[in-house]
């Protein structure tokens, strides 16, 4: 996918839910985004990641027709345990 990603259509809607979205990187036609909680009053308003990704993809597609997929890094999810055994 060439060109920059236009995040505005998703940003506006997500802001209404008190969250922010920023681009980590564009890998081919896949966008990797970082979710941030701006308005802590409605933390539970925000969709879980697996529901949020298709929603954000649908919001971004009209302005970014070549976009194939959205992957969201969600700080609400626990990081995966380090597979390296402690020594």
């Amino acid at each position, binding site marked *: 996918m060439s060109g920059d990603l236009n995040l505005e259509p998703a940003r506006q809607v997500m802001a209404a839910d008190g969250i922010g979205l920023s681009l980590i990187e564009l890998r081919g036609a896949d966008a990797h985004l970082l979710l941030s909680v701006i308005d802590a009053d409605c933390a539970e308003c925000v969709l879980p990641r697996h529901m949020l990704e*298709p929603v954000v*993809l*649908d919001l971004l*597609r009209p302005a970014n027709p070549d976009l*194939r*997929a959205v992957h969201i890094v969600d700080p609400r999810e626990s990081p995966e345990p380090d597979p390296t055994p402690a020594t």
Partner: protein
Amino acid sequence: MTTYEPELIELDGELVDVLSERGLGDGLPVVEPTPERVEAMLEHADGDADEVLFTLQPRAGIVTRRVVAINAVLAGCEPAVFPVVLSALRALAHPAMNIRGVNATTQLVAPMVIVHGDIARTAGFNAGTGCFGPGNRANATVGRAVRLVMLHVAGATPGLGDAATHGQPAKYTFCAAENLDESPWEGYAHSRGVDAPSAVTVHCGEGPHNVHDAEADGDPRLILGKIASAMTSLGSNNAPISQGEIFVILGPEHAASLAQRALTRRDVQSYLFDHARLPAEEFRRHFEELAWAPWMKLVDDDHPLPMTAEADNIRVLVAGGPGKHSLVVPSWGMTRSVTIRVEG
């Protein structure tokens, strides 16, 4: 738009063995669905390859154009037939088809795919001699692709999602084209209100029952009388289930004999409705549960009842080559055929 991406793996060994180990395949050799072949198939699609279109029961497997293309490649389809495969699957996903029941039943039901119109010609389908097999690549592979999707996506695996006691050959492939060139009547799809250059009909039922009438003069009463006889079976699901359709596929010679006596399609339906009958008492004796239209329950025991609730459930079209044969394809019963335009 919701999307879904199927899995890509590195092939290690023969594909037919790899599939078998995973409980996939129909037992016959397959064509490797490489990305290149799948892309070539998708050249004949209109729309996003990974858009979730619908799911198929009982497994609720996701159908996208790419998933269909993969199974079409596997089946040996040439790309030009892709829209027919996809459209047949759309028809199977229609609520009226009751695909959950069709796939799960102990009866041997298989989807029959009939191709109508321009695409039958341009994509090389056979509407004439041997149209139901063997030998024609389009007919054979489209029917097979539909079956592979039933197995791999809908979960109709024998013994798991498919409880058919015996199964049947039509569960490998069951597809032919309507012989419009030799039909004396309006094309079947147009007669059902589908006004499109290309269309497909799917009917879920038994395999074809042959009716051979080679009597001199091509007397309609003898042709239709034999067809009526073939329709009248207590062993078919049409007997206890009156909403079921019965497809009558007339060979061109039989169709010509009927049309020469000025019979229209509607006349054929009416005559068969009137003659393919048994006394109500016989149905009542053989079946504890009868899923019948209310009017049928009112009649006296000696009243001759039709094998279906209304004449329009007897669906007539023309296919095949020279020879004095026609086919009867009874329904599974709790399903309705679907005719739709062909679209990628």
